[in-house]
């Protein structure tokens, strides 16, 4: 294979301040108690990008109070006027998407190809889509006079920082709620950039507030008595804690949690497309995807053919500099996540699965993990049961559709699934029996603001996106 010359995106298109405050009531402010700062690093180089403030209880109080003050006037605006603010935000996100894409790749480690072509266009599209709902809520099927809940506490993960922000903020604002959002501690920069987008759009102060910090800040926010709604995307374990903490309160809750999606390849599948879908399913965004197709189920009769094609395809994946436009797989988001991926992968090998990675030189600095598959995996293996959240694929086999369905559903999760077969009736019959919120047929990892996304079982409750996504924010 020939080598491409490096094609790096310039990082000079975006300015990163040495330090950031919290965005409360339309202003960047210092945290109330000093000492609360942490560093966010570029996971590809371990370079410190900026110092960010930790919001303590007083700061969260202030942010919730600001959101509460803003909630009345914001919800009283005619829907058409709220719509226009959201359209403005959508436009600004579009206009500034190059800056945001670079910022996202720097802070998160994801390839610029993905932040530029997936995260940012989808984020803008979500604002456009929900902008249009703001003045159409009575047509949405949730009653004649749907009303906002009030203040939404929103906690988002590090895998798609800007996209998750859009998923959370766009429907909340469209329905007349105000928000306090906490981005993940390893990827706060795009949310802080977004604070500036809100100012540029002249969004009324307090409608969007951004508080940064780690798990403790998130806990303080979701447990705050002044919030009416909690929306969380992240791990199932934290989701459980949040569900416990809001129990007995009047707070509404939606959770988008983990997954262990089965990607089922039947013997009549278009193999080349299936292999592309498998690769996209597990190696997109370094596998840091809750709906990643991390369990590959192959019908026995095509097992050898699929595995051979998959290995051949994996050998062409380029791992390295996230800002290089040729890069397919960027850096693992944090040292902590890298350690988790390594631990689970080692357990996979110890438990008897066969490990394989293509020849692949990893950079010396930063957090890296080569794309990896495990074959000979059984349902008892931990790598078949636990979410690894990295570029690691477990391969299992099956003989009949019934066995494939049985194995696919043999998980506490139920976020997504994939089906590969040329037979339309089989797609629909299998889809009927899969206990998963999103089922992709002959494709994988497709997202669109018009389409509801969310999980069955322990993958959480509620749906984001589409008409259904409005429900979580309406009384």
């Amino acid at each position: 294979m020939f080598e491409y010359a490096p094609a790096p995106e310039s990082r000079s298109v975006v300015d990163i301040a040495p330090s950031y405050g919290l965005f409360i009531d339309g202003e960047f402010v210092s945290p109330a108690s000093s000492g609360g700062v942490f560093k966010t690093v570029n996971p590809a180089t371990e370079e410190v990008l900026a110092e960010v403030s930790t919001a303590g209880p007083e700061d969260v109080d202030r942010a919730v109070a600001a959101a509460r003050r803003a909630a009345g006037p914001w919800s009283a605006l005619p829907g058409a006027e709220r719509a226009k603010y959201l359209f403005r935000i959508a436009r600004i996100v579009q206009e500034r998407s190059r800056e945001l894409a670079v910022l996202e790749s720097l802070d998160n480690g994801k390839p610029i190809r993905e932040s530029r072509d997936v995260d940012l266009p989808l984020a803008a599209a979500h604002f456009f889509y929900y902008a249009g709902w703001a003045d159409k809520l009575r047509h949405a099927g949730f009653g004649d006079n749907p009303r906002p809940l009030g203040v939404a506490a929103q906690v988002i993960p590090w895998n798609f920082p800007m996209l998750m922000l859009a998923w959370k903020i766009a429907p909340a604002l469209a329905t007349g709620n105000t928000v306090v959002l906490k981005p993940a501690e390893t990827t706060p920069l795009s949310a802080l950039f977004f604070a500036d987008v809100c100012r540029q759009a002249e969004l009324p102060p307090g409608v969007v507030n951004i508080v940064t910090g780690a798990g403790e800040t998130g806990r303080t926010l979701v447990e705050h008595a002044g919030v009416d709604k909690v929306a969380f995307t992240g791990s199932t374990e934290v989701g459980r804690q949040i569900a416990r903490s809001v129990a007995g309160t009047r707070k509404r809750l939606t959770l988008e949690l983990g997954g262990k999606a089965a990607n089922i390849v039947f013997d009549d599948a278009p193999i080349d497309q299936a292999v592309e879908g498998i690769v996209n399913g597990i190696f997109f965004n370094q596998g840091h995807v809750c709906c990643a197709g991390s369990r590959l189920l192959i019908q026995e009769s095509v097992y050898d053919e699929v595995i051979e094609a998959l290995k051949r395809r994996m050998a062409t994946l380029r791992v390295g500099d996230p800002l290089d436009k040729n890069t397919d797989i960027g850096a693992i988001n944090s040292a902590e996540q890298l350690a988790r991926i390594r631990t689970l992968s080692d357990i996979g090998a110890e438990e008897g699965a066969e490990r394989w990675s293509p020849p692949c030189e990893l950079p010396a600095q930063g957090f890296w993990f080569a794309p990896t598959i495990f074959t000979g995996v059984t349902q008892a293996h931990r790598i078949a049961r636990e979410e690894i959240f990295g570029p690691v694929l477990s391969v299992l086999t099956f003989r009949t559709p019934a066995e494939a369905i049985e194995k696919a559903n043999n998980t506490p999760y139920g976020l997504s699934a994939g089906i590969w077969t040329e037979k339309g009736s089989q797609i629909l019959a299998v889809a009927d029996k899969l206990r998963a919120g999103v089922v992709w047929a002959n494709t994988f990892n497709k997202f669109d603001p018009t389409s509801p996304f969310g999980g069955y079982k322990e993958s959480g409750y509620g749906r984001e996106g589409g008409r259904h996504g409005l429900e979580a924010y309406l009384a």
Partner: protein
Amino acid sequence: MADVSRPGGAGRLAVRKTYKLFIGGAFPRSESGRTYLVDGDNVVLASRKDARDAVVAARAAQPKWAGATAYNRGQVLYRVAEMLEARHAEFVARGVAAAEVDAAIDRWVWYAGWADKIAQVHGGANPVAGPFFNLSAPEPTGVVAVVAPPSFLGLVSVIAPAIVTGNTVVVLAAAPQAAVTLAEVLATSDVPGGVVNILTGHAAEVAPWLASHDDVNALDLTGVTDPALAADLERSAAGSLKRVVRPSAEAADFTADPGLGAMTALLETKTVWHPKGF
């Protein structure tokens, strides 16, 4: 009277605008060479041939416009609002009340948002008895001929709901200066040529040709005030079984919430069946 765009300075004669037709994204004169005077402005008087040219342009543009993603169509309609906002003063100078221009801009924004939502509200999965997957989704009717009401907001209120879902339109405009100025907005708004075609002239003269045209799929008579003419046009439309939007019995209130009717009247519903089974 006509020099509303800019006062002539001392000793300077203002340049006047010729109000031309808008067909296929271009601004032709009438093939008939006719014009008429409206408030001192020369306006092109559309002929039967112009109407037929406009239908050809609308038909040519329709498949691609309908095939564009709903997201894309929404973006284009929103762009119309942006461009209209920028030319607010010009419409006011043409005699449209500022509040009416505002309402027209907001109406484009409202319809822009419907592009990717109408299928969710007006379609969906049908729970059929049997091992079948069955989904109904709205599709555009095709080419829509519109006799537009005289107000600017009325004009926008008949064009936007027709095109947002993927139809293309041939519009007979009643207030020609504002309509042609809107055409100039559309021409600079990424609306593909042929999606909106605007004819100026006498509805009673041109509309019958559109009503009886076999390549027009729907006829919107919202702007027809003469009940006898409306009935004639509706009878003509029966020849090719056009969908007809009748004029409302009372004077239409375009400032009211438009609801979904203006869109759904110009939609077909397609139901797709597929078996389920191993």
